[in-house]
């Protein structure tokens, strides 16, 4: 008999217990604990963002202003870089071995890990990429990836269009905090201008694609795909030709041009000088150029003056508003005459202003001193302080109906409000009952404390052209499938009745034909305008001109502001007239071309330019 026969049970027991242990373990790993299956999903599934192409921007005649340009990001994968390739890489990208070593270190530390590719050179142009592409194919660990940057075929309207740049850490965190998970690192975002204003429409909708990957990260099988929706294209109200001419005319000068279609509020041109080439702020030179434009240029070319600079005093163009309010208030009629008393306030020699038309035609300062005095000192009794307070209060309310002292609501970022001095301002400035008309009379001729932005000046021209109302000036003409124009279709009325505008319009016509604005005349077109010369104590005065044409059916209203341009008719008036001629006729006459060339070549960057 076999004495060890029962030992089989020990062995069978061991076998079965091992089976049980495995079963429990498997039950835990596969059924109870879901951790491992989550990890499996992480290992095998990859989600990739599909980047939508950014919407294009076209002008009112469907000319492409902002398109796309392919640029290339060069990536490195530190673990795949071979020692023998380093000198080739250094030659190719023109860097020292030490620099490249630093690049490798950076790409391997912190957020970057050596087995993940990181950006090495951003935004190479197609040309640059074509030069290196045959070589990088042979280097392991270096590869290029195409990205769509902005392209500017016409190189105009840089301020208005704005620019995009790669999202920085702050913006990235902010967008996330606001529940916007669109961006990933290295993505572009609109920073200024239309790019910022219409960012949400231009950027489109990101899609994504889930796929199964193999151990090396290669796509094997797509599981689920949501295609990206391209950004919407914008058509804007700008006229590219007009804008181009405006930028030419304002070359080597400081100032603004704003042209508006009065019947719609559409902005036809918006020039901010000095300007910059929008292409500078794309591609790999962004940082360098941005610093140069922002820090090292005292003329601040990055500022969009037409909406941002609200510290401009309007000068004599303000007399038009004073006259309109005075007519509405009934403190004067079109036949009211005052003497040109140069003792009160300076003036030049001209015929006697025995009616409003002549006063405007000659821009008579003492006349408007009197007009403003009647407006402010309208009240009766009490004392001059009380009367001035009441008068200024009324005047402020009315002046604001012309769009001054608050933002108009243009669809551009950073619009500034300008400033209309009011009772509380003077109370703070001088103290209560320490000021009266005699303290604030310089408002009468648009000097003093009033601050106006060029867009508000152009809007004034549009109000007069429309005989009393305006549409909020705006840039957007059309967006695919979006109904965005509604808010720009409301008429905003000034406080002045339409009937009071005729005399002003006649007067403005006279200004151009026989008055201070003769430089703005255009053959065959009746132009209305008003010059302004904004006093600048120790330097050349600023040159201002607002205008619209044709007189009877205005198609364009324009404001031109040339800083340090001495007087209104000197630079601003001819610039405005050339703009209007070009817009209304579609071309410039030969005579005008010569004039334009002359203006273009003029340099007025200095506060004391001698003419």
């Amino acid at each position, binding site marked *: 008999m076999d004495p060890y026969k029962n030992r089989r049970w020990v062995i069978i027991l061991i076998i079965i217990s091992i089976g049980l242990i*495995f079963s429990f373990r498997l039950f835990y790993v596969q059924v109870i604990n879901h951790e491992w299956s989550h990890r499996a999903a992480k290992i095998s599934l990859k989600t990739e963002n599909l980047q939508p192409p950014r919407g294009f921007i076209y002008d009112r005649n469907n000319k492409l202003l902002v398109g796309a340009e392919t640029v290339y990001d060069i990536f490195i994968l530190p673990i795949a870089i071979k020692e023998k390739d380093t000198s080739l890489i250094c030659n190719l990208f023109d860097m020292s071995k030490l620099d490249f070593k630093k690049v490798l270190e950076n790409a391997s530390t912190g957020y970057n890990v050596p087995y993940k590719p990181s950006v090495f050179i951003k935004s190479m142009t197609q040309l640059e990429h074509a030069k290196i592409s045959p070589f990088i194919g042979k280097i392991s660990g270096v590869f290029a990836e195409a990205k769509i940057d902005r392209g500017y075929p016409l190189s105009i309207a840089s301020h208005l269009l704005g620019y995009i740049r790669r999202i920085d850490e702050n913006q990235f965190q902010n967008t996330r905090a606001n529940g916007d998970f669109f961006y990933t690192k290295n993505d572009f975002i609109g920073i200024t201008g239309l790019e910022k204003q219409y960012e949400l429409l231009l950027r489109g909708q990101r899609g994504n694609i889930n796929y199964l990957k193999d151990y090396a990260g290669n796509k094997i099988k797509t599981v689920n795909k949501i295609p990206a929706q391209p950004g919407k294209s914008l058509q804007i109200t700008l006229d590219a030709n007009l804008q181009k001419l405006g930028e030419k005319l304002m070359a080597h000068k400081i100032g603004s041009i704003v042209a508006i279609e009065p019947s719609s509020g559409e902005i036809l041109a918006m020039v901010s000088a000095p300007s910059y080439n929008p292409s500078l702020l794309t591609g790999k030179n962004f940082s360098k150029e941005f610093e140069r434009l922002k820090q090292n240029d005292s003329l601040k070319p990055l500022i969009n003056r037409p909406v941002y600079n609200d510290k401009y005093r309007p000068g004599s163009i303000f007399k038009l508003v004073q006259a309109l309010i005075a007519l509405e208030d009934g403190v004067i009629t079109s036949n009211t005459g005052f003497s040109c008393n140069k003792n009160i306030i300076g003036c030049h020699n001209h015929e006697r202003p025995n009616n409003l038309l002549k006063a405007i035609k000659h821009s008579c300062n003492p006349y408007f001193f009197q007009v403003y005095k009647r407006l402010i000192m309208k009240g009766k009794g009490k004392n001059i302080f009380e009367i001035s307070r009441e008068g200024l209060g009324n005047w402020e309310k009315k002046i604001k109906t012309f769009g001054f002292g608050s933002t108009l609501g243009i669809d551009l970022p950073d619009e500034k409000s300008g400033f209309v001095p009011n009772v509380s301002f003077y109370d703070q400035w001088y103290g209560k009952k320490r000021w009266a008309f005699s303290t604030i009379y310089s408002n009468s001729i648009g000097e003093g404390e009033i601050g106006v932005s060029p867009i508000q000046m152009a809007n004034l021209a549009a109000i007069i052209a429309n005989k009393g109302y305006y549409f909020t000036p705006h840039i957007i003409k059309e967006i695919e499938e979006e109904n965005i124009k509604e808010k720009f279709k409301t008429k905003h009325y000034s406080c002045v009745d339409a009937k009071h505008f005729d005399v002003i319009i006649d007067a403005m016509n006279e200004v151009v034909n026989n008055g201070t604005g003769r430089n703005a005349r255009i053959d065959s077109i009746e132009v209305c305008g008003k010059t302004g010369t904004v006093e600048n104590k120790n330097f050349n005065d600023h040159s201002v001109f607002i205008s619209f044409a044709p007189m009877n059916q205005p198609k364009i209203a324009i404001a031109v502001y040339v800083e340090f341009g001495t007087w209104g008719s000197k630079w601003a008036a001819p610039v405005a007239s050339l703009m209007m001629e070009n817009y209304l006729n579609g071309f410039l006459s030969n005579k005008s071309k010569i004039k334009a060339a002359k203006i273009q070549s003029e340099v007025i960057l200095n506060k004391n330019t001698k003419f």
Partner: protein
Amino acid sequence: MKYRNLSIWKNVDKPLFLFYFILSIIGYLVMYSSNYNGFEIQDFLWNTNYGKQLIWLILTFFFGVFILLIDGNFIKNSSYFIYGIVILLLVIVLFMPPIKGATSWFYFSSFSIQPSEFIKLGLSLALAKLLSDVGSKFQDFRTKLKAFLLIVTPAILIAIQPDPGTMLVFSCFVFVLYREGLSGNFLLIGLFTILIAIVGIFLKASNSVFFIGSNAVSGNLFFGFILCIGFLFSFLIIRYFVLPRFRKQKIRSLIFISVLGLSISGGINIVYDTIFKERHRTRFQIMFGVKEDRKGAGYNIYQSLSAVGSGKIFGKGFLKGTLSNDKFKHVPEQNTDFIFCVLAEEWGFSGCMVFIILYISLLVRMIMVAERQRSKFTRIYGYCVSGILFFHFMINIAMVIGLAPVIGIPLPFFSKGGSAILTFGLMIFILLRLDAERKVVLR
């Protein structure tokens, strides 16, 4: 002859054959799935792993039928010869060019042969022959020495290759020897050693520290201290509660165990600090969950456990694995050592249970078959086969599901590899053949 054939098939143990057959089919399907990358008929037979595997499987069944036809006595008498031939092959293979750092293979164009697989069969036969020979008693020292030499010779040859996984399988013969009369103390001492080693390595790997009063003491020192107290306590128990006539013997074994326990725990300290390389330490740290390392040494286990876990209850379905499939290769060695992942991922917990039940049934059935033999040779041989298959099963699955460190060892009937498929098949067919003869002759 014809009559004899039929009688053989009649006497073949149907359950054992069925378990083996079903496992082979499942194994082949899993192996097919793990290598599946779109089916191309022209590549099928010669250029794909599953094509080659099919050839090996057919070859195995062909040889199997052949074995069923030959005389069992012939097999028994060829035992030493087969053993000798394979040992010779094991020597020659050492001079072959190394593949992945090991000289384990002979290459014939696209097929390869691994003699270390065949030795499992050769050794089983030779050991059975040695222990069943009339006149050799296991209790004799000479027999023990011979058995020891039979086992150790191929083990050393395989250690030279090196192939630690296969070497480890050789320890399964402890079960066989135990069944044949080796003192149960060996099993217990083995278990005791493993237990002490596991605790010791765990304490080292986790850098445990214990406090005695306010003094921090390293975990291992503390463990040794506890062991000493335990032994002292046992000594006192023996001293006062065991009858004087047994006392001397008990105290002797206690001293033996004490010395063994303390030297193992102390030895682990030294081995862990000096002989172990950092990667070994990491492997243990990962196994004990002290460290999670997804890219280095823990990669295999992490990937394989993810694949296993993602199978959930019912799995992803045949050919639908997304981690263990050859197309994805997230699990390394997914068609050899880690093939269990494919089964677990595609068939889920339910599939795993079917597999475990089938496999355990096969092992237990083998023991039952072995136990019913009048022939000692067949019984020992049956235990050998059962033990080998059990150790493969135990080590392989434990590794895949993260219960043991990574040790390269195939899963019988599943893993890619012709030599293994053939060896395991022949081992079972020989057992079937020998069993079929049990009523005919007495050996």
